[in-house]
């Protein structure tokens, strides 16, 4: 049990709490990505490179990408339900959702 492990575990615990209490969806998806990143690092320290690798590609890339796409879609659906469908949306909002944390 070394200091690095303790620090990482504490960070993971904190990131878990932060993920749950962040109620704004996009920010939450980003925080979830950070949690995935920290878990990946923790797994490296726990001598599990295979798992760390998977967690990095899934927990901090693929899953947040899915989440951001879904959030963007939900917003669009709600926005278009709220107002008439005639005006076009701001450009650029379309695709950025798939790029990790870059969405608004």
């Amino acid at each position, binding site marked *: *049990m070394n200091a690095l492990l303790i620090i990482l575990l504490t960070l993971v615990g904190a990131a*878990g709490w932060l993920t749950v209490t962040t109620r704004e969806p996009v920010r*939450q998806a980003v925080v979830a990505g950070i949690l995935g990143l920290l878990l990946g690092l923790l797994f490296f320290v726990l001598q*599990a490179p295979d*798992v760390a690798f998977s967690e990095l590609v899934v927990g901090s890339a693929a899953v947040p990408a899915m989440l951001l796409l879904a959030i963007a879609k939900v917003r669009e659906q709600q926005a278009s339900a709220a107002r008439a469908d005639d005006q076009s949306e701001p450009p650029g909002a379309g695709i950025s959702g798939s790029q990790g944390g870059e969405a608004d």
Partner: protein
Amino acid sequence: MSVYPYLVAAWLLGCGLYGVITSRNYIHLTICLTVVQSSTYVLLLGVGYVNGGKAPIFAGISERSVVVDPIVQALTLTDIVVEATVVALLLALILQANKRYGTTDPDRTTRMHEE
């Protein structure tokens, strides 16, 4: 201190469940479920750790060296796939629900028995 990793697992379990219970948004709820799931990763990998053990990959180390338990790692790999699938399916359901009924709030459901 030697049970700290398991306590972190317990903490993540509690956090995630708390989030699911109080969630006002299905997407938030989905993310909370992944937090619950991360508790299983931490428990499984924690259980298989051996002090001073190396990763169970015998590429640069002797076949006799002490390694951490490879089984739990294989189990966790499966677990991670399950995470991805659960998130994908839930998001599909959520998107479809939102498309048709314009809400992602789990508390605004139709089934309210008031007679």
